[in-house]
């Protein structure tokens, strides 16, 4: 009987299964914690922080956050140049590759890359969006209270 077969494994096999299951879970958790939380606690530096830490950062790879400054975006073949700004500090950026679809001036972005001189050489743009969702046709609805200054 199948029911009997399920009952058959004794204590040692149960214990072995328990150990294997725990090891698999621990390995997965270890990977996630090392891979993830190492980065996650300081996920990005804002543009002004990065400029203040310019010396220590050297050519180290990190994430930088700032708002894309209107009027500075220049598209080139397979690259895009723009400035980002945070607390009045501007950092010029040269990004290799195509920016994501939602990339545009006046939105916050997180970039991955490193300093090259005073500019930031980026190879990944992530568009940060806010927790506010507003309808595209403003005539149909009113402005939500959270966006009113």
């Amino acid at each position, binding site marked *: *009987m199948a*029911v*009997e077969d*399920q*009952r058959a*494994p004794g*204590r040692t*096999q*149960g214990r072995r*299964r*328990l150990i294997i*299951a*725990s090891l*698999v*879970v621990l390995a*997965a*958790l270890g990977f*996630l*914690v090392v*891979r*993830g*939380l190492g*980065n*996650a*606690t*300081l*996920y*990005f530096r804002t543009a002004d922080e990065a400029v203040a830490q310019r010396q220590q950062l050297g050519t180290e790879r990190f994430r930088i*956050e700032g708002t894309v400054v209107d009027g500075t975006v220049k598209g080139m073949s397979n690259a895009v140049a723009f400035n980002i700004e945070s607390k009045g500090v501007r950092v010029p950026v040269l990004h290799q590759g195509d*920016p*994501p*679809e*939602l*990339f545009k001036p006046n*939105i916050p972005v*997180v970039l991955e890359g490193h300093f090259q001189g005073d500019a930031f050489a980026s190879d*990944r*743009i*992530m*568009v*940060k*969006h*806010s*927790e*506010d*969702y*507003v*309808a*595209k*046709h*403003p005539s*149909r*609805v*009113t402005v*939500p*209270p*959270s966006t009113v200054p």
Partner: protein
Amino acid sequence: MRSGIGTRLLGTAAVASLALLAVMALVITPQDVNQLDAVRFLYIHVPLATLMYVAFGVTAVASVLYLWPRYRARKWDLLAGASAEIGVVVTGLVLVTGSIWGRTTWGVYWTWDARLTTTAVLFVLFLGYLALRRVGGDIDARAKRNAIAALAAAIDMPIVHKSVEWWRTLHQKSSILDEETFMHPHIHGSMYWTVLLGIGAFLLLFSWLLVNRYRLAKLEDRLEDEGLERAIAERRAEADALTGAP
């Protein structure tokens, strides 16, 4: 133990509200000013994330009740397991829908920020819990071990929820459960009501799944008990035959 009229009504209500949600989410609600049509992920991703908390929350409460001597009963262990199983599937869907939404809005499928990482950890923790439930041993010892493991895994739940406030993340902050703006939601007009409808519809679906999965767990339990009794009876018959033999 066939499903009763109540369960069938629950299932019907779940299907009807999900159909209404599909119409609201895909046809009636407007585009977002920034995200355009990608905002429609909101109506599935947020309800799924809510279910994730509810499912693992039920597991945690049932585990506490099992560990509490006054309320200790086999049913709490079965309920905890049933809810965690649904929770793991839902968390998988949270990660998948979030990933696709992330690709269309952020530009990446995955990034190791605190919200995404702690959610992935939650997924693995409860996957481990489900694996642990299958490990053998004495029924009561197993159930106690399950309950302690569930509570250990549940520690990650408030961390997931608060991660967007405790650390800098690419993921945006809470739109719904933001204590300061609870009555002034970040989500606009019909978009807000559709998110709430989504949460309601998915809660109905969850209740229906949970009722049925719990019923199945009880049947499995009974099968195991009866199988054991039959095995004992067979052994006893064998022994009787041996001793009874001349």
